[in-house]
């Protein structure tokens, strides 16, 4: 798929998918089609019933199911190296495949941090053995994510980094970020930013508002994020740099983003399914699954995020899949680490909570869920003859109790745990191979 994506090679798919309703907004497709995949490449699209499987191809009957271009998640934590008890390359990419993703981009806040080329090379080497779908890696902007010294960005790019981020932490000092933005002209690669002013977020554990006032939990005001978005958009404009704002959570950040885009500053942004579907009201339960950073915010923020995603002001969906072990999350809310898993529920959460009630069109959800890689220069998955097979089959009628059958991820800290969601991924093809297969009707190739 790209020289900056890495996964375990496996057998190219030989599959005929019959009768799926193909929805690929970029290819202007919204109708039932047979899809013939030969040697991992989309060979032909045809009217339902018009294509026949070659002798060595499996047939998958997909009448009543939808085929979407594979989703791309520009923001996941695979916890490798160093925290494999939370997640590893194999389980993290299995979770992604089960969620319909054909590629993910992993964050560098591991242990050790991905802040030099040897760590990145060894990680890439592991990915070529363990990753079930293609993975791209961001490297740190600053050494040890400490926010002072820049990493060897140029060498990291040569070693395969897609871009840079200190995700989990902001680059607090404007002067440091400015130098990184200048250095981007040499190194290339998008600089992605976790926006949070620690002087304003303090020891906050949730959104500052009526719910935090009730619970007596220190709040993280929205402006801890939005003031940094505004600051860094100004820096990017001044240095003509390319930056990406990660996991935006509030209306004030959207306003800052809108202003930056209207000035022609090269910025993009992502939003998470949990911020699009849940609010700080959930924190009343004091269930640590609802603790993430940035925190769940108000209903007003949630609606603004949905509107910004609909208009395209926010470019893509990202899960910020952040696994934590049960023993880490089974503590009082204020003590718990921040983060929710999200790969296995992203599409179903958006479909159930936004598409079914009419807040967002299905086509927009599909487009935004597959748009995250292109922001980092990766090819956009398309269901089109000649393209490598990157697609998923989804049963939009299938409902499931999240977590009831367990998770592919090593961790179960999912904020949608116990919810009934609708829209289940049945098959994922990533980089031309079958990466995930749920219960589907399939016929094995005839043995000759």
């Amino acid at each position: 798929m790209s020289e900056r994506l890495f996964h375990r090679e496996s057998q190219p798919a030989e599959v005929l998918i019959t009768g799926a309703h193909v929805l690929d907004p970029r290819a202007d497709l919204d109708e039932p089609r047979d899809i013939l995949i030969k040697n991992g490449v989309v060979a032909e699209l045809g009217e339902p019933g018009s294509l026949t499987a070659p002798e060595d191809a499996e047939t998958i009957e997909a009448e009543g199911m939808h085929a979407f271009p594979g989703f791309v998640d520009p923001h996941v934590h695979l916890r490798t190296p160093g925290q494999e008890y939370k997640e590893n390359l194999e389980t993290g990419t299995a979770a992604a495949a089960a969620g319909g993703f054909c590629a993910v981009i992993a964050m560098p806040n591991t242990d050790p941090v991905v802040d030099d080329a040897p760590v990145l090379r060894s990680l890439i080497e592991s990915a070529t053995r363990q990753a079930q779908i293609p993975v791209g890696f961001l490297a740190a902007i600053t050494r040890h994510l400490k926010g002072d010294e820049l990493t060897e960005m140029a060498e990291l790019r040569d070693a395969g980094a897609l871009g840079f981020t200190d995700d989990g932490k902001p680059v607090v000092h404007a002067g440091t970020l400015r130098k990184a933005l200048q250095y981007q002209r040499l190194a290339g690669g998008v600089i992605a930013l976790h926006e949070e002013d620690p002087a304003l977020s303090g020891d906050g554990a949730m959104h500052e508002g009526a719910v935090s006032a009730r619970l007596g939990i220190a709040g993280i005001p929205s402006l801890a994020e939005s003031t940094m978005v505004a600051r860094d958009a100004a820096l990017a404009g001044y240095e003509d740099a390319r930056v990406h704002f990660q996991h935006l959570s509030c209306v004030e950040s959207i306003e800052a983003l809108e202003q930056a885009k209207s000035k022609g500053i090269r910025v993009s942004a992502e939003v998470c399914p949990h911020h699009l579907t849940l609010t700080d009201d959930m924190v009343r339960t004091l269930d640590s699954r609802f603790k993430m950073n940035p925190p769940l915010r108000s209903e007003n923020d949630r609606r603004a995020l949905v509107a910004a995603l609909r208009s395209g002001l926010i470019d893509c969906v990202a899960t910020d899949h952040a696994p934590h072990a049960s023993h880490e999350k089974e503590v009082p809310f204020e003590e718990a680490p921040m983060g929710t898993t999200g790969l296995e529920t992203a599409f179903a959460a958006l479909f159930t909570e936004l598409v079914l009630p009419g807040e967002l069109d299905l086509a927009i959800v599909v487009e935004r869920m597959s748009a995250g890689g292109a922001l980092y220069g990766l090819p956009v998955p398309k269901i089109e003859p000649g393209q490598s097979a990157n697609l998923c089959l989804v049963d939009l009628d299938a409902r499931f109790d999240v977590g009831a059958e367990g998770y592919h991820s090593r961790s179960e800290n999912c904020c949608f745990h116990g919810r009934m969601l609708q829209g289940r991924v049945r098959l994922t093809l990533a980089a031309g191979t079958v990466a995930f297969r749920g219960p589907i009707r399939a016929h094995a190739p005839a043995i000759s």
Partner: protein
Amino acid sequence: MNRIGRHLLSIDDLDRASIERILDRAESFDEVSGREIKKVPALRGRTIVNLFYESSTRTSSSFELAAKRLSADVVSIRSQGSAVDKGESLKDTVQTLSAYDPAAIVIRSPHAGAAGLVARWTPAAVINAGDGKREHPTQALLDVFTLRRRLGSLDGANIWIVGDVLHSRVARSDILAFTQMGAKVTVCGPPTLIPREIEALGCEAATTLENLHEADVVYVLRMQQERMRDSFVPSLREYAQRYQITTERLRPGQLLMHPGPVNRGVELSGEAIDSPQALIGAQVRAGVAVRMAVLYELLVGAPSLAAVA
């Protein structure tokens, strides 16, 4: 009548009738506390664990006395010097203690929601003795008890809660309990110590004592020294100038309360503490009777107290 519920985690768990019932029960137990032999056999043979993850004098001693006056066996554990100190998780500690089959676990924790978690991990009844800055329901009950005795009813009473509302679990539980009982509550303190959107709890907010004369009851919160260090107030001196409750600032007839321990000369002047308007001693005394009533209601919940008292 049924029990008030299985646990007491929040004032939100109680409707007005349940609060009245606990207070009525506490009145009977208060009579027991006035006897020479201050003991009834209600919980004989049952075990109560007090698990305190924060230092506390009055709440822990009050719970311990309450349990003993009901003839329960009491185990009190403090985080210092216990397995907690050795890194044991709350879950493991609770499951270990649950192996002794306690009837109730009383927990004080620096973290919101800790009591709720404990309730998930133990078959025992759980009583929240303070969880972070969120709630301290038995304090609110004893405050209502004290006021009800003095005023007859809280209906229509105007209560001001003055001081560091931001960091106060007492304030949160009191706002809920006082309004539940029909009082009108105003919180007052420096703008840095009044949480944004606190009005959502059903109170009003003020930043000066200008209208303090409207209050029937002035409930003063403890002002902790470290709040200065974090710049919530520039100095205790300026805080005292603006917010200290003195006999001059109190109107005749106003009642004065404080959850203790008091910083004499900071949030309250010495004269105010010692004035006949102060109910601070009555609050402490009420603590034992109210906690006896809570334990009794949770663990026995019999329709009549006649059989035990």
